[in-house]
Every structure is written in C-alpha cells, then in structure tokens.
C-alpha cells in the first residue's frame, strides 16, 4: 500500500492507502474528496480531476505527457505543478505523495 495525502481546497487532508497501479483520481473519488469531479472517468478527456502536486514531489511524479498537457488547456488556474490526477499512477516511489485540489474544476 502506498500512502497518498490529498488536500481539499478547504484544507482538509485525506490520507489514503492506495493500491499501486490505481490512479490518484480513482483514490480521490473512492474517498469522496470534494473538488475532484472526474466527469470522463479517467479518460484524460475532461480536465475535471486537476490537482497541484506539492513542490517537493513534482520531480518524482514527473511531467504530463502531451495529451495531458493539451487537456490541461481546459483546466483553470493552471500552474507549473498542475497535473490531471487520472494520469498519475500510484507506485512505490509515490509513497507519501501530497497533492492539492484547486478551488474550481471549471
């Protein structure tokens, strides 16, 4: 099990035991984290699962691929540490990962 810390916009932290291979979005939805909508169910087709990766983790998590980067155009208040959480797969190295939910998904 890999620990994820998803912090909602109001500051509430959701500490989640996640299975490797699942996505950060799936874990957020399963635990009803407010602000993650995931309208398209993880197909990288809606940009309503936008999160900010904690600065300490951006290197480990890595950069979005070009399809995700294109999809981020549909998100709001996009920052250099923005990712779509359905495109982040949980793996051992992400144990302790911190991501934050933006104010709006649009």
């Amino acid at each position, binding site marked *: 099990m890999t620990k994820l810390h998803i912090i909602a916009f109001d500051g509430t932290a959701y500490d989640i035991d996640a299975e490797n291979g699942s996505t950060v979005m799936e874990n957020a939805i399963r635990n009803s984290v407010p602000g993650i909508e995931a*309208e*398209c169910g993880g*197909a990288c*087709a*809606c*940009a*309503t699962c936008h999160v900010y990766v904690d600065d300490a983790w951006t290197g480990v998590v890595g950069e979005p691929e070009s399809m995700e*980067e*294109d999809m*981020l*155009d*549909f998100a*709001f*208040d*996009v920052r250099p540490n923005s990712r779509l959480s359905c495109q982040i797969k949980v793996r051992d190295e992400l144990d302790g990962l911190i991501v934050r939910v933006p*104010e*709006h998904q*649009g």
Partner: protein
Amino acid sequence: MPDVTKTPDVTKTDVLIVGAGPVGLFAVFELGLLDLKCHLVDILDRPGGQCAELYPEKPIYDIPGWPLITAQGLVGRLMEQIEPFQPQFTFNRMISALEKREDGSFRATTDEGEVFEAKAVVIAAGGGSFQPKRPPIPGIEAYEGKSVFYAVRRMEDFRGEDLLIVGGGDSALDWTLNLQPVARSVALVHRRAEFRASPDSVNKMFGLHEEEKLRFQIGQVTALAGESGVLRSATVKGPHGEVDIPCTRLLPFFGLTMKLGPIAQWGLNLHENLIPVDTEKFQSSEPGIFAIGDINTYPGKLKLILSGFHEAALMAQAAKHYISPAERIVFQYTTSSTSLQKKLGVA
C-alpha cells in the same frame, strides 16, 4: 422582439429524437424497421454525442461483435447502418421547449425558434446538452451576453470591437484569424506557446503577431473590469506577472461540458437530473415521450452504449404502439423477413 407576423417554419416528422449520440442514432434503426421516420436535433455540429466530442480516438471494447472499435468508428458504422432510413438531422440547435398538443402529438422549439411537430418524442440527451465551459473568473456572469460570448453566431457583432480571445484549440485560433480583419483590435491569450489547433492556423496567428496586427499573450485571465456588463479590460496573469489588456469583448474557448439544460423545464418527472422510465416502454412520466441512453434511470441502470441500444429496441415497439395503437406489430428477424429487408434496401 420576436416577429409575430412571420409564421415559423414547421418541420413535421414521425419521431423527434433529442440528441444524436450513439443511442439516438441507433433508435433511428429500430424505429425505421417499424416504418417510423425520424428527425434528430443536436446542439453539437455533428453526430455522435460523447463518442464524437469527448473520446473520438479512444478504443471501446464492449460493443457486442466488435472486440475493438474507436468511438468515432462506432459513430461512422451507426451512420452507415441507419442510412437506409434517411434520418433528417438538425445540428447546432438545442431543443429548448417541448409541449404536448391536444391530439397527443408534440411540438418542440429550438433555441433559434425552429419548430418541429412529431407524433412521439425520444429524449436521447445523454448527460445533457454540450455547453461551453464557463471559466471561473470572478463576476464573469454579469458580462455574459453583453460583453462575454462563448460562440460567434454573427461576425458583424464584433465589428469595431477590441477582442480578447482565450484558448489554444481550433475554435480560439479560427476565430482569432476570422475576426482579426473585422475587429478594431485582437488579443489572443493562451497559457502556453504550444497550441492544439492546426499548425497552419498557429503559423498564421504568429505571422499576424509579428506584423503587430494582433497581440499574443501567454497567460490566464484572472479578473475582469467594467460596469453593468460593459467590459473595459481583463487582467492576464502570465509568467512575468500581471498585465491589463483593454478589451470590449471576451471570447473564452475552454471546451464543452454537459449540462442537463432545458429538459428540466419540460414538466417531466426527474430524479437527480435523470428521467425515470419503466423498463418495458422506456417511457417518461408523459405518455409519448420516451427516454433512452445515459439520460434515463431505472433500477439496475448501467450507462453503457449497449444498454442504450437495448432500450432503443424496446422503446421503438412502445412508440409504434403510441402512434398507431390499432396496428398489430409482428415480431420479425432482419435475417429472414423480406419486408424488413425491403426497408433496409437489401431485398
């Protein structure tokens, strides 16, 4: 003011289908086998609903008989399959009003005032109509319809204005290029220097930027300034801080999202934005109005394309009965019935 002297064009059809997603398309087939002609209306500019708009290139693995088919591929096949029934389409229109008439038929009106008369109505509206995403810029609502527009219906409306266009896809780039000669000034704002739009449009845009015929600014709009709906300027946060761009019109292009829309006002029973139906007829609370595909709900409902296809087949029987109660429907196979094969144009 609507022109009351002009009687609107009325299109008559057997069955009006609201929504041309995969399920609405397949309904044409099932209704066609029962000799019912269909007219489909969709707010999108092409058939396919979610398949065409959200994931055209993605593979679907659970369409019976197709181990793998892309979403757009499925739409193409459906269009081919229903072709013999010559369905009529009206795109770029939303059905905004629906009323039942005394004789049990229906009258529907689009957002542009076109009128349809039908003997039965099938709501195949999926997750609702696709509508432009509203960027969460504080106070943007107050400018909508006056200074902020999500689509261009008439280019003339933008003549002589200072435009700010936001986005990096084809809509944003095409309108930047098309409106540039008409507007007084054009600024394009996008969050990065890479675009999803066709490279040709992007090159043209950068060309005009270099000739100083438009301004391209990297960044995101964070605030609007103006009074009573009249826009004066927008604040754009970029990599090097904030700039104010004077503008009188803002056109944000952030793609589409599904909203239930006007269906909520048609007097039908709804449950959490879905239309409850029975599983024999797939009929709504109003006899003669049926609901199939993602828009309906019943115990055990799965939002799958294949479920929608099944619903279409059963609904067609019920719709036929609603329209011609005296006619006996004979159950037949397309494999062996010459009468069905004639309708399909293969016998």
